[in-house]
């Protein structure tokens, strides 16, 4: 088997203890910490002890903690994330239904942050210590310090309410929300498959504000790393050589420096996905985006423990997979990395 193949398998095996640990942390946090799930679920209403007790037995909360832990782990291993208290449907099924929305938003956000971050970062690096550099750095730091939900609301106020250019919230507007037929759950792909161009335009319009909100919030990190990485590479001897050969600066930067500068940038990708998912919670809340993050917030509000746990585990698994993909990407960009 090839080097990369073996590496992927090794990494997959390594994610098992990682996910196992996260499962344990989640279980402990949700079960051991104060707050009885059953009384929380039934609300502060006046319910007799017998009813609460019957619910406890039905949901298995009467068993010893270790047994609960075991059955919880076993369930997850079999792909059983439990049933939502709130809707009565399997949690995993609900998550899969909402997952495409989150991914669509995340990809668009990532795209915006890559374009803005890498382009501005490299531009700053090639103009180090000039006014451009300083302005870009201020922009990066400001994007770091900006509350994402605030940015989203400001966008809504100006571009949706005042100017009326874009829709305030949601994934689809007007009649389309009822008539649009979704196949994959990824609306952009669905619209293209069906050749429904009016829907595609509407979907794109709905994506602009949440995507930019998420993207700009991530730009700071991306941009700062791009700048630092590019500066580092531009100092290298082979860049001096390339310049000495009389190559155009554009060729030196884009042809010689960029590939090496990309290595740390890609490394941050994995980390960024965690930030991206965190940002998605707020973006989805602000823009009423029907993804897993807003599902989590609603589950929390309803004290729907199986859904909360399921979503957390789902996100943990997803992050592990992303980290794995990033590591493999890493080997493609940097051939020196051997497995």
């Amino acid at each position, binding site marked *: 088997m090839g080097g990369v193949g073996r590496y992927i398998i090794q990494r997959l095996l390594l994610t098992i203890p990682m996910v196992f640990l*996260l499962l344990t942390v989640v279980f402990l946090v*949700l079960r051991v*910490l*104060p707050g009885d799930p059953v009384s929380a679920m039934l609300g502060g209403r006046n319910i007799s002890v017998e009813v609460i007790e019957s619910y406890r037995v039905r949901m298995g909360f009467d068993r010893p903690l270790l047994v609960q832990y075991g059955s919880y782990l076993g369930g997850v291993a079999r792909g059983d994330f439990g049933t939502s208290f709130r809707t009565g449907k399997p949690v995993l099924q609900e998550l899969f239904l909402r997952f495409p929305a989150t991914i669509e938003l995340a990809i668009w956000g990532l795209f915006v942050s890559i374009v803005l971050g890498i382009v501005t970062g490299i531009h700053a690096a090639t103009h180090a210590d000039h006014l451009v550099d300083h302005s870009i750095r201020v922009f990066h730091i400001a994007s770091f310090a*900006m*509350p994402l*939900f605030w940015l989203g*609301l400001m966008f809504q106020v100006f571009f949706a309410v005042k100017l009326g250019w874009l829709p305030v919230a949601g994934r689809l507007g007007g009649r389309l929300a009822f008539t649009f037929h979704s196949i994959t759950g990824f609306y952009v792909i669905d619209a293209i498959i069906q050749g429904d161009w009016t829907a595609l335009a509407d979907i794109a319009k709905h994506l602009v504000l949440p995507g930019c909100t998420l993207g700009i919030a991530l730009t700071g990190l991306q941009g700062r790393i791009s700048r630092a990485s590019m*500066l580092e590479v531009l100092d290298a001897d082979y860049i001096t050589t390339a310049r000495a050969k009389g190559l155009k600066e554009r060729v030196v930067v884009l042809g010689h420096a960029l590939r090496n500068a990309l290595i740390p940038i890609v490394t941050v990708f994995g980390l960024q996905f965690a930030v991206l998912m965190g940002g998605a919670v707020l973006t989805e809340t602000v823009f009423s985006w029907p993804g897993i993050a807003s599902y989590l917030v609603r589950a929390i509000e309803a004290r729907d423990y199986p859904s909360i746990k399921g979503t957390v585990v789902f996100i943990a698994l997803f992050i*592990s997979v992303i980290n794995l993909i990033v590591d493999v990407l890493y080997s493609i960009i940097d051939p020196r990395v051997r497995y």
Partner: protein
Amino acid sequence: MGQHSVRGAMITRALHWATRKITRGRRELRGQTILKIGLAIVIAFVLMTVIATRFPALNGYHPTLYREGTRLEGPTATHWMGTDQLQRDVFSRILGGGKASLIVAFSAVALSMVIGSVLGWISGFTGGLLDRVLSLTMDAIYSFPSMILAIVLVAMFGAGLAPMIWAVGFVYIPTYFRVTRAEVLQVRETMYVEAARAIGVSNTRIVLRHIAPNTINAIMAVSSFNLADAILTVAALSFLGFGLPPPAPDWGFDIQNGQKYLQSGAWWLITFPGLMIITLSLGFGLIGEGISDLVNPKRKRKRV
């Protein structure tokens, strides 16, 4: 008598050390524009919050008492930042609205700093199975989206200041763990630690006397960035409704409140609290930048 002179010498030495640190600190502070701006912002915000909490109606309008009159009035000469749906002055609410953010951010970062660094020192110094288990656990927590973790934790703990401190604090523990552990591993191999071990210095003493001081710089820079991040996390938690109960003024909560009147174009309800959050978070971020430059002058290196 002998005992006394020894103690005297120790006090002299300590004083000497302190003055040296302070004078050197002042010398290093000179020319650190970024650090100074950051410090000025943070100090100004702390003072503003303390004063506004002590004297709420400083500008003539009480932040929590509502009055009769026109609701949702835009910025005017009398209400600089407009009024909300209960005819409360937005400006007076903004002055004291950072209380929860500051309290939670400082406490949470202090909490995670202590727990994380101690675990990091122990883990890095002892190594072995304990180190492996701790590292793996911390990596697992670290890889998970911190915002989601904080939200889930706070949801479990319940709303309020103390739950927010625990939730936000928990999220940052792995950061300090990783920073200190990495430093410890580096310092552990140095000659002077080996020398200390060779002359029979106890492990506790090696950690406290030789390893801990070496990790302080890194921890300081990291904690400033964490404070900047904590301000945003607290704002987000308050925005989602896990913060102080109303009617207490709070930036995050006020933004959530403003969201309801967004469609009617009441931009001032959202804009001003948000600007406060940005400025404060920026202040901590600048301090972090400044400290990093101080600690690691290579970062500032100009290109030839």
